């Protein structure tokens, strides 16, 4: 150990900051080195002299000022810890949100089917059913529960509108169609005022609609048990409209005529026109027995691409029964009057009056019987309107010279370039506007937060 190092130790020794072994070294050295002894004494005297530089106290004014500042001071709104917490919360929210969004998306496609089933159980409550539920909500997200709910309260789907080709759709689309149908049914029923009205609304078109939807629902996977026995004793007027895009309208007309013949139907009207662009369009109206309607429609759908399809059915059984009752009543009245006529054959004045009454009754009866016949006729045959059209035949392009093609290409390119420039200009301007408005919003919010922070800081802190 050098002399310099020992001197350093002596300074530490004086402060009591040496190890026991260093104490031995220092004390041994001090006993033999007069210079270091002198230094040691000087250090001790120096320490005593330094203490003459006396302490001063913080002025009372300043102390009060500092204390006040400390009391007013609170944890800042955005310190490191709160920012970390905020950031972590945001990150977790984003991650959880993304995961949930992904699962919900998959759920609609079937991955969360069990969750939907649970929801269905909740909806099966008849009280819930009576609440008015937005149509789109049920139809798009809760079709399955809606259907379960319908089933649980004894209803069947009675309304359906499809805008795509069900016949050619894969099975899951069939299922979807059935579900949407159920959703629409529930929506309509729920929009009715009360349960009685709902039942009435459903019952009125129950049979026709059921016949319409039952085959499809029966085919739909996972939606079995909806097919019901069809009551053919009831009087139901059924109509269907279908629009088809076909390859050849002329051939389609022949096929349709053959189809109507095979199903014991009759063609009511037919129009086939050639349009200016060379395409053809036709409208055929025909009647077929109601029990053949579904198979007829299935065959029609196979003829081309279905643009739209509408079916409607109305139950006229009650009206029919009412008319029959009225006619029976009139017949009884007629018989009664005829008896009166026979009984008082001599009373000419009375006879004339009674005969007039009988004539009136007969007149009314004829009118009612005509209506009854018309209803019979309508319910006996379902009416179908098929609109079909074909596309313009493709014409082979003319052979163009190299010069023409070059000019055409140049024109096209020039047009594209100008359009691109235009879109860039318009979009740039829109982009600047969007960015500016975004910045403006950020600025406004920053000002609001700053203002709130200042107010809180000033008035709500002790």
């Amino acid at each position, binding site marked *: 150990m050098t002399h310099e190092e020992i001197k350093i130790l002596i300074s530490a020794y004086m402060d009591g900051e040496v190890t026991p072994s260093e104490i031995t070294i220092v004390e041994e050295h001090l006993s033999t080195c007069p210079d270091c002894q002198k230094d040691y004494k*000087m250090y*001790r005297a*120096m*320490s005593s*002299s330094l203490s003459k530089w006396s*302490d001063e106290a*913080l002025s009372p004014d300043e102390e009060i000022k500092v*204390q006040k500042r400390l009391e007013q001071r609170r*944890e*800042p709104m955005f310190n490191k810890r709160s920012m970390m917490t905020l950031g972590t919360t945001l990150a977790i929210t984003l991650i959880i949100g993304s995961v949930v969004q992904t699962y919900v998306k998959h759920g609609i496609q079937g991955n969360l089917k069990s969750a939907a089933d649970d929801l269905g159980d909740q909806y099966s409550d008849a009280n819930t059913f009576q609440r008015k539920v937005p149509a789109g909500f049920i139809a798009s997200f809760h079709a399955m529960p809606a259907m379960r709910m319908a089933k649980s309260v004894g209803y069947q789907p009675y309304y359906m509108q499809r805008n795509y080709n069900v016949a050619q759709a894969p099975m899951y689309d069939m299922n979807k169609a059935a579900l949407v149908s159920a959703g629409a049914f529930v929506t309509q029923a729920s929009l009715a005022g009360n349960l009685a009205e709902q039942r009435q609304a459903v019952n009125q078109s129950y049979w026709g609609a059921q016949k319409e939807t039952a085959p499809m629902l029966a085919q739909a996977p996972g939606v079995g048990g909806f097919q019901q026995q069809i009551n053919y004793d009831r009087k139901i007027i059924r109509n269907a409209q279908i629009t088809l895009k076909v390859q050849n309208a002329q051939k389609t007309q022949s096929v349709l005529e053959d189809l109507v013949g095979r199903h014991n139907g009759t063609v009511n009207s037919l129009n086939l026109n050639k349009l200016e662009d060379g395409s053809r369009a036709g409208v055929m109206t025909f009647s077929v027995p109601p029990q053949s309607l579904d198979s007829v429609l299935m065959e029609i759908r196979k003829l081309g691409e279905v643009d739209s399809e509408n079916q409607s059915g109305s139950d006229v059984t009650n009206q029919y029964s009412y008319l029959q009752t009225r006619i029976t009543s009139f017949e009884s009245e007629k018989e009664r009057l005829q008896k009166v006529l026979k009984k008082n054959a001599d009373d000419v004045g009375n006879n004339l009056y009674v005969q007039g009454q009988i004539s009136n009754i007969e007149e009314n009866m004829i009118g009612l019987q005509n209506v009854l016949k018309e209803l019979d006729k309508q319910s006996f045959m379902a009416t179908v309107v098929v609109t079909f059209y074909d596309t313009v035949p493709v014409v082979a392009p003319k052979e163009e010279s190299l010069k023409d093609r070059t000019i055409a290409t140049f024109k096209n390119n020039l047009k594209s370039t100008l359009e691109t420039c235009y879109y860039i200009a318009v979009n740039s301007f829109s982009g600047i506007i969007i960015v500016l408005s975004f910045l403006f919003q950020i600025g406004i919010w920053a000002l609001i937060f700053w203002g709130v922070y200042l107010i809180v800081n000033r008035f709500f802190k002790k």
Partner: protein
Amino acid sequence: MEIQDTNDEELILRYYQGDQEALKVIFKRHKDGMFNFALRLVGNRADAEDAVSHAFMMVCEKRYTIKPGASFKTWIYTVARNICLSKLRNRNRFSSLWFSKTDSEEEKSIDVLDPKGIARDQLDQKEIMAIIQKAVHKLPEEQKEALLLREYQGFSYEEIAQVLDCSLDKVKVLIFRARNYLKEVLPPVLLEEGR
């Protein structure tokens, strides 16, 4: 246990949990020590008061992290020291910008002082203080800080090492060199035992 007897770390924990009284106790406990340390370091009351105030503001902002083994006292002295050094740096920048680099009045006055020629009874209390102040201010920054913490604040070498963020051996050397320098510049009368 009385709040006055509670250690710093416990008080800080209580303050962080919402006990405002704990902060007052800490402030009262350290305000004078910190103020004198800062005053001896920067040489004027306004800056020293400002340093104390700012250091405690940082406590309010919860900048101090409670960790096992971490000393609050060394942390707040480190904060105060950094504030003082920042003020000294700004002051030096300002003076170098406006004045030429000549010896200050203080330096001149200590130079004209002839330590050997001063008799013991010629010095009164104020003069001794002035001489010590001037001598200490002539020390290099780190030596001055180490000496002040040792002689006036009673810090152990380990605590000084924490405040200055250096090794224990360096603290020993810093204090030795400071004393060695003072031994040279202070009048012999102040280095005699029994004074």
